[in-house]
Structure formats: C-alpha cells, structure tokens
C-alpha cells in the first residue's frame, strides 16, 4: 500500500547487460543522491529485468512520464535528480536518439502534395487556431483592413482590386474590382456587402474549410469591400449544414467586435461595419445571387431577372456587393502585397490561385490551392497522387453540377476560366471529381442531372420541365430502353434549356450531359444500340456471370460473397450461377482463385 504515496518511480535495468555496463553502481549513486535531497520517501527505485536494449545500457526509465534515459553513468545521477526529479525538466542529452534525424523527414514544401501548391486563400488554414483571434493577428491579420481604413480612399481600394485582376471565385469569374466599382458608383444612403457561402456542389468543400480554418480572413475581406463601396452592414449567407463553420464564424465575429474590428468607428476612421450570419436551408438555387438575397429577406429562394444587378438594386432594394468566400479570402493578400504581386501569379486572363476540392477515385483526397494555369495533370497526378488501385484515368468533372467532364486528351489543359469554358466545362467553385475506368459516363451525367432537376426552383418552364424530360431520357438509356434519336433529343433539349433559363442553375444544368455526349458519345451509343454498359455500372445492361465448370475447383468462395444467393454447388465439385437470380454485381469475380468466373 505504501506504493501509492510515491510520486515517481525510477526503473533501473539490472539485467546482465546493464549490470556489466555499470547498473549497480548507478543504483547506489541514485540511492545516495535521493537521500541527500530528502527524496527517498517520494521516489521509489525499482529494479527491472532486461529491456533488450543492452547496447545503450545502463537504462533508466522515470515514471509517470515514461522518460527513457540511456547510457546513464553515475556522474549523470546528480543532474537527473536535480533537473528531472526535483524540477520536472527532462535531461535532454541522455534521451535515446533514434538514428532518424529531423532532416531525414521531408519538409512540407518538399512533399509532392504541397510542392506545386501556392497558398494564399488557404495560407492560415491548418496553421492557426481558428477560434483564437490573436493567432490571426500574429500572422499579420487585420493589417489590410487597418491600412485601407486609415490610409486609402475607397476608389484606391477598388483600383487595387481591379489592377490585381481578381475574378469571382464562385465560378462565374466576373472581375471583382469591376463589381465593386458598380456598387460604389450606385447612389444610396444604405448599402450592403454579402458573402456567398452557400456552397452546394456535390464534392465541393473549399468555402467550408476556409470558414472553419480561418474565419477572420473572410471578415477582413468583407470589411475592405464594405469600406470600398460604402456599405455599413454585411451578411454571410452560409448553409445550415455547416454547423462547425457557423460556430467558428460566430466566435470570430464576437471576438472581432470585442477588439473593435467590427462595430463603430473602426480604427478611429469613422467607418462603421456590422456583420450578420444568415443560415441558409440548403436549397442549391440559393447560391444564385438574386435567390440568395430573396432568402435573406425572408422570401422564397427564387431568382429574379437581372438587370437590375445587385450592385444597383440588391438586398432590400439597396446597392449590394456579393462575392464568394474564396474571393474575399484573397483580398487581404492583395492589399498587403499589392496588386502587382497578385497579378504576377497565374495566367494573363486569370490571375492568382484557385482552391480545389479533390475527390473521387483519387489517392490524395483533399484541398489544394494552385496558381491559375496549372494543368489538370499536375493537379490530379502530381498533387493528387494519381488514381487508386492502379486504375486508369477516364475523366475529371469540374464545376460541379454546372460543369462538365473532360477526358484524358485534356489532361494538359491549363486550369483557368477561359480554357475550361472553351473545353465545354467551367471553373465553377472548385469541385474536382476524378473518375476511373469503372465509372459509366451516362450514369455520371444522370447523377448530376438528377441533382439539378430536384434542385430546380420551378420558376422557368425550360428548367423545370426540360431537365425532367432529359432525366427521363437518361433513365431510359441506363435502363436499357434507349431509342434511336435519344442523343439528338438530349442535345436539342440541352441547348434550349441553356439559352432560355433565367438563372445560372438552368443555364448550366445540361452541361454534364452535353459534355459527356461531346467526349463519350460512344458510351451513349453502346447503351442505346448494343444494350451494353462498357463500364459495367448500369445493372440492367450488364449480363449475368457464369462459372467455367472445367476451371472451377469447387472451393465455394464465390457462393459466400453472393448477396442474392445465386451461386450453389457442392464443395470440390463445380458451382453454378443461376442467371435469373444473378444481379451482375460482380462481387464473386475477384474472389475466384482460379479466374473461372466471367460475364456471359
């Protein structure tokens, strides 16, 4: 029972190896030293058997921490007692050093994932505690806002953003400086700035990560915009499905208010700015700016015709500037480093960097930020680490449900707004879904159209009815009931919907279908004319599996994995698959040790 009062145990190895290297004298010295410091009642010495590390003996371990000292000599004992047992400081020089040194570990800049990245919007993400405003300030945070409010006039700010060549990162790519100029030029006693954080594309999480990882950067970007256009109130419109982003943003706003970085007379400049959060209910169409503003006003989230543009008549009829999260995240850098420094990055028409969310059949799923003009190949193969399981690249989908799929031939395409548009897709907000040979492009198109069809607000007939008809045709094709002329009808409907819908949702909804027809028309034809799904995805078009009786060794492994019990047989005699029950899921094929299973 006496053990419980010892605050520390010192283990000394008294195995043969350590004894021969001096463990016994070490123990005696320790006993003496403990007694001299009046620690005998607090610290217990325990003799242990061999740790198997005789080469580095004598070995001493101090608990409760578990500090592992090696090659300890009697001369070291006084220091251990004085430093470690009395003061609680580890004696560094006696710690075991593994042969591996710090220098052998690759630094961040040297690993493939970061080598080609350049982080501006994401500069602080993963580097600071997002809930600590001091950490943001320590890295130069709010200096851009301070500089703008105390040293620059609003037109100078607008000109700087114009000169930087920043374009809207939400996907449209409209020049941000120009947008600010329109809002600034609009007459009005009251103006608003809005941050669009209604990130809804499947597979996209750029904005969420910035809000979660560096919320103050968004506040600062909005503060600069508000000063430039003359607004005193702002809204961040963020999906309610992002609870952590909302929580951190709320905390950030609170802290900024406490520091006087939001509120009245910021930096004694006479400038006031109040920031609110509006939680969206998750309708995809509310990412469209006019629908978004209707939603803030408490109306149904539906788009309205433009013009008038928000810069003229926006929220509650007042001039409003609305930008995406990533756009605002670039502002502090542009103000601090200057327009030239920003426009030097990227390409001529698309300056700066772009954040992408890499998902799909890729090894390094994650968030990357690269200079504009980086090729798809660099992003997918060098940063993303290529495709998993030795699979072959088939297509990459950019721009979410509004974008398109690009085949292998386009891997060398530099990523910027204009070249992606020329290729039939778009930058979009930054989702990048990688697909391999196991993906059916007709099925992919159907998935995205199913998404936009159910998210259509229903206001415009072409979008409401047209996407529904297109989806019906795609469903028919994947069910094996495609007809001659279906492809042409899809193309015709798609073009009509694009040219006659009011907002971006309808104008871009057919893109996944149109781009897959453009690049993978043979797959559509195989579905329609040959009743075959080349990727083996559309289950109605995949024929049942059969077992080669000659090759089968009767091990029964296939029968165990069949989800519908279509495989039967006796062990050590050939098994058979019932073609009427088989759903062609393919689960049995990789199980067979002798490759006796194949599709009929």
């Amino acid at each position: 029972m006496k053990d419980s009062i010892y605050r520390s145990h010192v283990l000394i190895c008294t195995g043969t190896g350590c004894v021969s290297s001096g463990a016994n004298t070490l123990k005696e010295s320790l006993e003496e030293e403990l007694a001299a410091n009046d620690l005998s009642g607090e610290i217990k010495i325990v003799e242990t058997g061999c740790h198997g590390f005789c080469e580095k003996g004598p070995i001493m371990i101090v608990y409760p921490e578990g500090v592992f000292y090696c090659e300890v000599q009697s001369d070291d004992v006084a220091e251990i007692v004085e430093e470690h047992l009395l003061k609680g400081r580890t004696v560094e020089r006696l710690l075991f050093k593994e042969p591996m040194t710090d220098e052998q570990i690759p630094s961040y800049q040297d690993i493939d994932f970061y080598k080609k990245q350049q982080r501006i919007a994401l500069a602080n993400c993963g580097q600071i505690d997002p809930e600590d405003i001091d950490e943001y300030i320590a890295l130069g945070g709010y200096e851009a806002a301070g500089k703008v409010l105390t040293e620059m006039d609003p037109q100078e700010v607008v000109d700087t953003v114009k000169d930087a060549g920043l374009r809207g990162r939400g996907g449209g790519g409209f020049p941000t400086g120009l947008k600010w100029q329109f809002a600034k030029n609009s007459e009005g006693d009251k103006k608003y700035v809005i941050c669009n954080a209604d990130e809804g594309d499947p597979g996209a999480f750029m904005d969420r990560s910035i809000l979660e990882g560096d919320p103050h950067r968004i506040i600062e970007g909005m503060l600069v915009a508000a000063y430039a256009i003359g607004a005193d109130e702002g809204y961040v419109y963020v999906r309610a499905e992002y609870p952590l982003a909302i929580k951190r943003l709320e905390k950030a706003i609170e802290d900024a208010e406490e520091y006087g970085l939001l509120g009245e007379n910021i930096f004694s400049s006479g400038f006031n700015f109040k920031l609110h959060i509006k939680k969206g209910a998750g309708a995809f169409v509310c990412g469209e700016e006019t629908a978004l503003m209707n939603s803030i006003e408490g109306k149904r989230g539906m788009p309205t015709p433009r013009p008038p543009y928000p810069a003229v008549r926006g929220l509650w009829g007042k001039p409003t500037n609305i930008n995406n999260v990533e756009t605002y995240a670039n502002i502090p850098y542009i103000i601090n480093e200057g327009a030239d420094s920003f426009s030097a990055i990227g390409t001529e028409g698309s300056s700066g960097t772009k954040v992408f969310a890499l998902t799909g059949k890729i090894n390094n799923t994650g968030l990357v930020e690269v200079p504009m003009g980086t090729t798809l190949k660099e992003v997918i193969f060098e940063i993303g680490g290529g495709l998993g399981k030795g699979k072959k690249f088939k297509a990459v989908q950019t721009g979410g449900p509004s974008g398109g799929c690009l085949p292998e031939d386009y891997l060398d395409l530099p990523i910027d707004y204009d070249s992606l548009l020329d290729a039939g897709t778009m930058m979009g907000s930054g989702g990048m879904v990688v697909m391999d040979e196991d993906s059916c492009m007709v099925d992919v198109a159907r998935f995205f159209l199913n998404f936009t069809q159910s998210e259509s607000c229903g206001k415009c007939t072409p979008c409401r009815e047209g996407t529904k008809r297109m989806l019906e045709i795609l469903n028919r094709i994947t069910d094996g009931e495609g007809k001659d002329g279906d492809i042409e009808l899809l193309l015709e409907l798609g073009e009509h919907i694009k040219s006659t819908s009011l907002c971006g949702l309808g104008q871009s909804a057919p893109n996944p279908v149109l781009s897959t027809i453009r690049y993978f028309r043979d797959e559509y034809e195989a579905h329609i004319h040959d009743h075959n799904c080349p990727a083996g995805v559309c289950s109605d078009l995949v024929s049942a599996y059969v077992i080669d009786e000659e090759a089968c060794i009767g091990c029964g492994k296939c029968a165990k994995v069949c989800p519908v019990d279509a495989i039967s047989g006796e062990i050590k005699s050939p098994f058979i698959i019932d073609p009427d029950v088989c759903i062609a899921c393919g689960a049995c094929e990789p199980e067979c040790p002798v490759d006796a299973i194949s599709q009929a």
Partner: protein
Amino acid sequence: MKSLAELKELRNKVQKEMKKRDQGTRAEIIVGMGTCGIAAGARDILKAVLAEIEKRDLDVRVTQTGCIGMCEKEPLIDVKLPGKEKITYGNLSEADVQKIITEHVVNGNIVSDLVIARHK
C-alpha cells in the same frame, strides 16, 4: 481598435508571447479539427491526447486548427517541441497517440512510421 499602430502593437505582443511559448518548456500538440478531421475521428484522437497527458501528468498545450488540405490522411496532429520544428503525423488511431506521446513528446524521438512531414 483605435489605430493601425495599436493593431501592430497587439501583433508584436502576441508574436512575442508565441515566441516565448516556442522557447519555453511546454510542448504543443495541435489537433486538426476541421470537418474532415472530425469525420475521420479527430474528436477521439483529441480525447486520447488529453487522457494520455493527464495519465502522465505532462505539461503540454493542446490546441486545434482547421483543414490543412490533406483530408485523405486525417486524423492529423502536429507535435511541436520547444525550439524544434513542428512535425505532422497522419492516419492516426488512438493507440498511435499513446505511441507519439511516449516516444516523441516525452522522449523526443520522432515516430518515423507515422510521420508525414515537418514544417520549416
């Protein structure tokens, strides 16, 4: 905030404090707590870190950070020993946390099979 000068003063003060922290005796463990990290089990990792520190009665500062981009390798933690470079570990289990604290935080040896990279 009354002026840009006041902001700069605050920045210098915070930087100094962070520097002091760097040169002091406290180790720091930073857990990646973005949605990707949490989905991969970062909350359990954080709990395991706190439990291990409690068990060993260590003086370690535990903080959080957002997504650093390597979602595939979550849960991630950074270990920063005073005066040393920050080391990032990934694909962690709770058992790995014990190993990292025992070998790296307490004994100063980087756990080479779990390490991803170091920050310069």
